[in-house]
């Protein structure tokens, strides 16, 4: 291949900028969605028991949540504008479909989170406990609604439905089919589970650090136990859902994606590719490491091991996604989920043997695996997005037709700006989280907790029904 023509460069930079900025955004929802649910639950526990430990947990994680949430918000704002800035023709064509869906996200989710997060973060000592709990719960609800709508929008781009194409625009015909498009049913639960898993792993990892160091024992044990319990519950479901994504949606709707993420060119391999070095131009692998039989068994669901996995050469080169990105995105997620599986499974075994708080090797393992959930999420998105190329609306609109005609200088300049700002902020954020963890949770003094939470009625526990003598 020769030098890229000017507009190719512009297209490539626009794509890199989009991928980079959305991956940065994704990092924060990956933990804030789960954390908001965790915080609401912790506060509810505090209200029920009035034990200082729950307030301690709440305050500690609230601080980490606050900064991550702010970064998620501003990075999300960037993406909304980028649709028009860098992908003007795409925005003009898909506006009638994606605009309303994301608009619903704005009014039902973003405003909800934004309205109540202030009380959640700054309302301590000012509002009633019940108000605080309601605000925390509404923020959590908002993040989940946000996940729902955005997955609907993205799934429509993966499996468009319920529209007709007219005068260069996608015209919605049946909103039900648009919103509940074919891939949404599996991708939404997969994403929701993914963010809960990633947050649980983060909470467990921090607790593991304290267990290893022998600090903040009460705090560490409680959060370790809860987080690992959630992991053990959710991970098996996630493995089932993930498998169904491949079977129910990728195979019937996006076969080239499957070919790319399995890492084969010709359709003869019955083994499972562990690692490959693809050569897209030569349409072959320069090197590969493959486990015999396994590909047929999990890829093609033939336990006899005789069905080969389809290869990317079945798809004409101009319609092929990039194999390296799809393959390694998927492997990051898949290998990541295997590691998380070990943690979840190990925790069940240790719990049954009553060694959960004593097995130091396990604490160290969990500590080192803290970021794996987030990495798996980014990997999953790279698979989903890179694997659907060259289409921006699958089968209908090519990415190259969606790009705005900007000058190369402008796009390169903005990309460099995003790189500088985001990498700096990411470093600051990591430093901040590590600093908070090292400082440890602050003590909550007992007299800070009002033994008499209802000054009007003046009693802690009031029977709900009057007891007749």
């Amino acid at each position: 291949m020769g030098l890229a023509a000017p507009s190719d460069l512009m297209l490539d930079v626009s794509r890199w900028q989009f991928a980079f900025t959305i991956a940065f955004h994704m990092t924060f929802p990956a933990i804030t969605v789960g954390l908001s649910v965790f915080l609401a639950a912790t506060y509810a526990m505090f209200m029920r028991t009035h034990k200082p430990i729950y307030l301690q947990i709440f305050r500690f994680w609230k601080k980490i949540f606050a900064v991550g949430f702010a970064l998620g918000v501003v990075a999300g704002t960037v993406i909304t504008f980028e649709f028009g800035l860098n992908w003007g023709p795409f925005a003009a064509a898909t506006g009638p479909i994606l605009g309303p869906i994301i608009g619903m996200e704005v009014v039902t989710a973003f405003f909800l989170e934004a309205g109540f997060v202030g009380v959640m973060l700054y309302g301590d000592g000012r509002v009633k406990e019940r108000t605080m709990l309601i605000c925390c719960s509404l923020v959590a609800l908002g993040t989940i609604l946000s996940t729902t709508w955005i997955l609907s929008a993205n799934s429509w781009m993966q499996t468009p439905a319920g529209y007709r194409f007219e005068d260069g625009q996608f015209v919605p015909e049946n909103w039900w089919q648009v919103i509940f498009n074919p891939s949404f049913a599996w991708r939404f639960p997969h994403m929701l589970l993914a963010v809960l898993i990633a947050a649980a792993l983060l909470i467990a990892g921090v607790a593991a650090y304290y267990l290893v160091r022998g600090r903040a024992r009460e705090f560490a044990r409680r959060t370790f136990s809860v987080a690992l319990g959630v992991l053990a519950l959710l991970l098996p479901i996630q493995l089932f859902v993930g498998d169904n994504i491949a079977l129910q949606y990728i195979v019937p709707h996006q076969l080239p994606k499957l070919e790319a993420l399995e890492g084969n060119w010709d359709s003869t391999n019955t083994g499972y590719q562990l690692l490959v070095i693809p050569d897209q131009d030569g349409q072959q692998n320069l090197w590969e490491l493959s486990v015999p039989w396994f590909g047929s068994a999990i890829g093609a669901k033939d336990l006899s091991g005789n069905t080969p996995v389809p290869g990317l050469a079945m798809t004409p080169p101009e319609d092929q996604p990039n194999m390296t990105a799809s393959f390694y995105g998927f492997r990051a997620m898949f290998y990541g989920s295997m590691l998380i599986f070990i943690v979840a499974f190990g925790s069940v075994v240790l719990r049954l043997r009553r060694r959960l708080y004593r097995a130091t090797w396990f604490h160290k393992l969990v500590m080192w695996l803290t970021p794996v959930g987030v990495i798996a999420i980014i990997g999953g998105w790279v698979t989903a997005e890179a694997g659907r190329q060259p289409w921006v609306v699958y089968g209908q609109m090519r990415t190259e037709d969606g790009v705005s005609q900007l000058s190369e200088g402008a796009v390169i300049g903005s990309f460099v700006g995003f790189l500088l700002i985001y990498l700096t902020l990411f470093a600051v954020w990591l430093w901040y989280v590590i600093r908070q963890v090292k400082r440890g949770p602050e003590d909550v003094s007992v007299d800070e907790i009002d033994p008499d939470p209802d000054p009007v009625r003046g009693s802690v526990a009031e029977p709900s029904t009057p007891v007749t003598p």
Partner: protein
Amino acid sequence: MIADIWFGLIAFSLMMYVVLDGYDLGIGIASLFERNRERRTEKVEIVATAWDGNESWIILMAVALWGGLPEAFGALLPAIYLPIIVMLFGIILRGAAIELSVSLRSDAWITVFGIGSLIVAIAQGFAIGGVLQGISHDDGVFNGGTWDFLSWYSVLTAVATVAVYVVAGAAFGQLKSEGESARAARRLGLSTLLVGIPIVAVTAIWSMDLLPQQLTGGRVVLFWALVVVAVIATAATIWGFRSGPDAAAMVGVVVAEISGMLALVVGMVPIVVPPDMTISEAAAPHSALTFLLVGIGLNVPLVLFYNWYAHHVFRGKYRPVEERPAGVTQAGWAMRAGGERASDEQEVRS
């Protein structure tokens, strides 16, 4: 018709944005002129409880434009690529700085918050100027140059925007504080008005020349009526800063902002993208607009309630901080309306 109603909602979002985020950007800019550490912290915390909700209006505006008038969205944004990108840089820095400065009790991040706010205001001013002077497009696809937005006119709109936001920030600061903080806010408001009024006036006169609609017939009457309201509101603002009750300046600024923007709308409709793209040319198909109007329209009252609630919980003035207990933020410790102390109602006592 339905597209016109939708255009009304887009304009409404823009006004809500300018009114709400305008004051918190203004407070950010004002923090750059404040040396006293406590008062700088107070400024960030005034903003910290509400900035997210305020800023959500610009997201709603962008998405409402995207969904309802997709051609306009697709043509406008590439034309003002640089100002919008720079605005986003500012938004990022500022949002990160707000939470980091509160959490770390760090003065350096307050400076980042101030600079970020200034960047956002300047960039928005350039964007507005760049749009009003008209963009070059070929059937809805932008075909001009990267620097088209830059002109003497857009320089002027940038300065005017900063001035308006600072006045709004000062008015809100006066409303939320007492003692030296409030006096400083009044001084800042007055001195900004002194330079701001001539600049905004020149910008307004120049804009009349650029507006895509001839001011004739009913438009003239409406336009000048709005201008008169804006002038009166500005006078009220001056009075509010000099000697009026604490809320007067804020009311004056809000009325002036809204009537100014309505005057612009009068000079534009039905054009949405100057010089020539109309609402009906840019409009999405009927099925999309109906969904938008029902789904999003019905949610707007709720959204307004969330905004109101976020401000209502933290109502009252910020007090000097001596007796504030550890762990409670300034916002949490602010006085309730009516003068009673927050601690009277609080439950988690210290």
